């Protein structure tokens, strides 16, 4: 009993127990499961265990390498689309400006995340930023609701903000992303959710290793009117002549909806790129770690093997010398 406890606690005790300390056992990092004691308390791991472990680590390395290649090819496909869509939101920001610090009663935070995991920390970052915006916009008479795109954010937000979630949308990437799909989605959101300001939280793709969490704000037409009347950043909006439609309000309504769908389209594409990029780097570090682990295991295996051979030789020689002796 005590021996078993010692076995599990410290390989350092090996030299105290056995008169023939074997360095392999002392420096091995692995807790043995099939340990057996040889003559006079010599302890070493079965090579079978180490071999099994090496096989599984090698398989993991192959799988993660393959996942990295798949993510790289998917990234290439989405990246061109995302870069082409980058011109889409610029005219809206040029016209309406960007007011993330606007003070409104009804905020809706649209969190964009991925459905699949193993993509590093981007989903957690998005969720943290969404919670931060929630906190920032909390106050008397103000309410903030969540609209969630993607399974990963749903899993995280449903734990503590379940009552604030309005809409959950998943399986976005089943079919390749297209503007029609995103505009239908935007339509659904606008129909079902009352909002004064929509804040879209996503990860903007800068490069394969850099993703910047970003928040885009889309204001409802009433708030746009209010801000333009009060001057400030949107003050110049009044100087624009509005053609067509009976009232300016109607055009602004269409404009807000169009802006939302354009910004969503760009956000969803950028997030998809970031997801693939993050997955690439996660799988890359994972295969590198697996490679390191494999090296260490190989060393342990060799040492264990050599130790057992040495022990056998010693037994034979001591047996032979006892017979002669």
């Amino acid at each position, binding site marked *: 009993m005590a021996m078993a406890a010692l076995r599990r606690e410290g390989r350092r005790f090996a030299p105290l127990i056995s008169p023939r300390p074997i360095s392999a056992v002392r420096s091995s990092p692995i807790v043995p499961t099939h340990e057996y004691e040889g003559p006079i308390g010599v302890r070493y791991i079965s090579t079978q265990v180490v071999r099994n472990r090496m096989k599984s680590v090698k398989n993991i390395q192959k799988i993660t390498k393959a996942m990295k290649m798949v993510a790289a090819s998917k990234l290439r496909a989405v990246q061109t*689309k995302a870069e*082409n*869509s980058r*011109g*889409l*939101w*610029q*005219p*809206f*920001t*040029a*016209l309406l*400006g*960007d*007011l*993330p*610090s606007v003070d409104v009663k009804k905020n809706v935070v649209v969190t964009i995340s991925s459905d699949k995991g193993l993509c590093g920390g981007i989903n957690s970052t998005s969720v*943290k*930023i969404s919670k*931060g915006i929630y*906190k*920032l916009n909390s106050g008397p008479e103000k309410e903030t609701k969540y609209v969630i795109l993607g399974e990963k954010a749903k899993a995280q937000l449903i734990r503590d903000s379940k009552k604030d979630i309005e809409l959950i949308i998943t399986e976005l990437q089943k079919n390749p992303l297209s*503007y029609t799909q995103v*505009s239908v989605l935007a339509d659904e959101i606008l129909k079902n959710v009352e909002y004064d300001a929509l804040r879209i*939280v996503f990860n*903007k793709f800068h490069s394969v290793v850099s993703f*910047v*969490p*970003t*928040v*885009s*704000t889309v204001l409802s037409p009433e708030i746009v009117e209010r801000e333009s009347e009060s001057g400030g950043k949107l003050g*110049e909006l009044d*100087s*624009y*002549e*509005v*053609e*067509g*439609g009976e009232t300016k309000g109607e*055009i602004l309504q*269409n*404009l807000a909806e*169009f802006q939302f769908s*354009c910004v969503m*389209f760009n956000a969803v594409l950028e997030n998809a790129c970031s997801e693939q990029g993050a997955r690439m780097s996660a799988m890359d570090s994972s295969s590198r770690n697996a490679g390191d682990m494999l090296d260490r295991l190989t060393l342990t295996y060799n040492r264990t093997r050599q130790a057992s051979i040495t022990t056998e030789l010693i037994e034979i020689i001591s047996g032979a010398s006892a017979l002669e002796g």
Partner: protein
Amino acid sequence: MLRRASMLLARRPILAARARPFSTDLPAAPSADATFTEAWTKVIPNMDPPKTPLSFMQPRPPTPSSIPSKLTVNFVLPYASELATKEFANPCYDLIPVFKHSILSLFLLIVPATTGQMGVLPGHVATIAELKPGVLSVHEGSEVTKYFVSSGFVFIHANSFADIIAVEAVPLDRLDVNLVQKGLAEFTSKLSSATTDLEKAEAQIGIDVHSALNSALTG
């Protein structure tokens, strides 16, 4: 007289060149919204504030005081930017009177707004216009490029920047006349057999688009 004309000509590009090099001339658009970052750091001190689209915007030039001689056009679609900040210059703008439809126009942009075809020249007043399905044509000197636009918005800013955002735009030579006729017939029959308001509205939209396509191809 010719010497004076050439002097005036020479002065314009120099003015335009001088207006840009100093960063103080660019609009005072901050690269990040200061109030937002401050409020964020107060409430959530541990995380960096997220970036906002302002930090990724390409800066736009300020409103010039006189009528500018060039129009910069941004024509964007969800899948591509057809024309990205393409500049169309009308030199000698204030020397030669330029009529909208005269042969002397060196540059003209015609957009299909809901109120009809609207022409845009450099120095157009700031406007927001919604587009209906129709033909958008870019007249550059003697060459004309025509696109059929499904719908969208056009913003003309006071600093002579025109942003056209359309959902779909195809050059006219990619359209098939037979399919257009078929589509028109299909939607007309759908309208007559429509029962609910929603169906009627959808059929009407289909008819509008197809008849616009038809007139674009024939007219």
